[in-house]
């Protein structure tokens, strides 16, 4: 078992004191970010990306990625706490936890059971998903190493069409957002010929639109503006939130009764996360749906059913882990958060994609081992520190909001020491707020912005290799299959809308 040997080496890396220290710091920051309603996991990771650059000055990129991913794990667990205790989702992926988590805590008076079931489900799902990642990522990467430009382009195209075909939002709006991302990515020098494009004669535009300030703006500042409109947080009720061994035992008992649900949801969630563009948020709703669909007592859902907590939470965490697979193996981000982590890899001088498994084995396996450790650490922290984390919710809005803004500005500024980046961040903050309000999905935009350049490069290299013959994309069986799949996924919403219209005459199909 070569994989186990590599993994053991990875644990050796991840268990170095400096890496454990940064993992702890990352998970703790993630928990805090997860609890704060105005600040999401994606923006948290983006804001702290510049900090990771400082980490790489003294330590290896492995330490930096362990730190960044730790934020993701912390936020996954932390977002749930406020959903359950206060009926306020700390993260978009914790919304599904409102349906049953809060009723169980409040109406049935069992906050301890609600919290421990959520933490246990997260932990077990992450464990299952990480085992799957351990065994699946490397073969996929080795296969991907054989890909030529045509296959790689087909993979990228497939990622875009998955965002359209399987996205939760309107497919047309997803398409538009992909176009916007591609266009923004194209600004600056042409990667093949070096010609300036879309710069309109302005020097500032020649270097292109940087990814990090855009993401901090879209997610960080956009979220603050959105939550300001929802009239702040206001009064937060006090609720008993200390966890004891009794709660843990009760949670474990509940888990044993729902083991199959958690295992199935983890496996489904993992594969769902592997699909580009689907992170924890979509996974969590999917998991809630599955839990409800196959439950014997459907009528209990919405009233504090434990399956309604474990279902979404296990799928959410498994999707988050799964979304790292395409990033590591193919260089395609599986979710907005992993898009930010991938941008980090590029900034630290690593090339995300299959070559990582050959050239950066210590990095990859140290990172994979840290996913196990990170979840264990976060789980223990959650069990012990819930009252402290719940207290963060009482942080005053008038201090928190401007503080998050200043941290966002620092994040945008420090990467290149450039006020231009700060301006970009603020502009995209307002844009992001507006797009969010008008129900335009942001994930396709972010993914397209990261993948725009590589997609174009592979497209043109493939064409160059065949003297401009577009049939090059159908020259090997694999690229043909991928291209056909991409087209099918693109047409999927259309088929669905036509069928829906046929079933109920007069219905409008997909909402625009």
């Amino acid at each position, binding site marked *: 078992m070569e994989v186990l040997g590599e993994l053991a080496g990875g644990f050796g890396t991840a268990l170095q004191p400096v890496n454990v220290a940064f993992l702890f710091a990352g998970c703790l920051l993630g928990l805090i970010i997860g609890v704060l309603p105005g600040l999401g996991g994606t923006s948290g990771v983006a804001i702290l990306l*510049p*900090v990771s650059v*400082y980490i790489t000055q003294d330590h290896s990129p492995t330490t930096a990625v362990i730190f960044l991913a730790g934020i993701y794990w912390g936020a996954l667990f932390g977002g749930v706490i406020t959903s359950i205790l206060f009926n306020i989702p700390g993260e978009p992926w914790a919304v599904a936890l409102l349906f049953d988590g809060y009723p169980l805590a409040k109406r049935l008076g069992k906050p301890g059971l609600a919290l421990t079931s959520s933490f246990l489900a997260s932990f077990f799902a992450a464990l299952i998903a990480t085992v799957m990642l351990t065994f699946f990522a490397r073969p996929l990467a080795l296969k991907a190493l054989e890909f030529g430009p045509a296959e790689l382009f087909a993979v990228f195209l497939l990622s875009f069409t998955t965002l359209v075909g399987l996205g939760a939002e*309107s497919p*047309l709006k997803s*398409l*538009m957002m*992909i*176009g*916007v991302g*591609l*266009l923004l990515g*194209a600004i600056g020098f*042409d990667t*093949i*010929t070096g*010609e300036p*494009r*879309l710069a309109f004669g302005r020097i500032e535009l020649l270097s292109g639109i940087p990814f990090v300030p855009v993401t901090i703006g879209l997610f960080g*500042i956009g979220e*603050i*503006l959105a939550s*300001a*409109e929802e*009239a702040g947080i206001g009064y937060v009720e006090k609720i008993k939130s200390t966890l004891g061994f009794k709660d843990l035992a009760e949670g474990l008992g509940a888990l044993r009764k729902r083991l199959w649900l958690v295992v199935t949801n983890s496996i489904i969630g993992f594969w769902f996360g592997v699909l580009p563009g689907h992170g924890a948020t979509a996974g969590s709703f999917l998991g809630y749906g599955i839990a409800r669909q196959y439950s014997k007592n459907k009528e209990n859902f919405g009233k504090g059913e434990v399956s309604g907590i474990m279902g979404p939470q296990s799928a959410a965490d498994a999707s988050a882990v799964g979304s790292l697979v395409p990033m590591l193996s193919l260089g395609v981000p599986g979710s907005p958060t992993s898009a930010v982590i991938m941008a980090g890899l590029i900034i630290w001088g690593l090339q995300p994609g299959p070559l990582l498994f050959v050239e950066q084995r210590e990095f990859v396996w140290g990172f994979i081992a840290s996913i196990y450790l990170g979840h264990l650490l976060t789980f223990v922290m959650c069990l012990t520190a819930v009252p402290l984390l719940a207290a963060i919710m009482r942080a*005053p*809005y*008038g*201090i928190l*909001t*401007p*503080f998050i*803004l*200043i941290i966002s*500005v*620092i994040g945008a*500024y*420090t990467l290149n*020491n450039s*006020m231009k980046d*700060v*301006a970009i961040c*603020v502009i995209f*903050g*307002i844009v992001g707020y*507006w797009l969010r309000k*008008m129900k*335009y999905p942001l994930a396709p935009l972010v993914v397209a912005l990261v993948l*725009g350049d590589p997609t*174009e490069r592979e*497209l*043109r*290299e493939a*064409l*160059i290799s065949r*003297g*401009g013959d577009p049939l090059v994309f159908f020259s090997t069986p694999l690229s043909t299959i991928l291209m056909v799949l991409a087209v099918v996924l693109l047409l999927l919403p259309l088929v669905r809308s036509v069928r829906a219209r046929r079933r109920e005459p007069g219905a*409008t199909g997909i*909402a*625009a």
Partner: protein
Amino acid sequence: MATAAVLVLIAAVAMLDTASGALPDPTGAVPGGVKSGWYPFWSGMLIVVSGAAVAYRALTTPQPAEGAFRDRGSLLSVVQLVVPMIAATYLMSDRLLGFYVASGLYMAYFARFTTGYRWYWALAAGVLTPVLVYLVFEVGFHALFPKSFLYPAIPF
């Protein structure tokens, strides 16, 4: 609807700028047959086509009569946040107020006038935040921020 129209407009400008590369070049003068304008042009086309479809849907399906904002209050609360934010980030620039002064003023302003804390809490927030940022980023990570027009007469 209006959002789609604005995005389509932006895309149209981008397409005009790259229109020279819109069509594949069959002469073989360009490697691969596509010029550098090809890709952005068709990205823009993607926006225009899907944007037109979004706009068409918005026009043909009955919309809730509600505006973008629930009431003046929610619009006001966003404007209250956006305007000081733009002002603060502008003032942060080098040779204006600098990062530390501008961020402190912004914290204090927000605490005092947007949320109505007592002046001493606002003052505390305005002083402590820049100090905290200085300790963490400038001392801890050796980051440098834009300084004010008085620098180097004063150290920030």
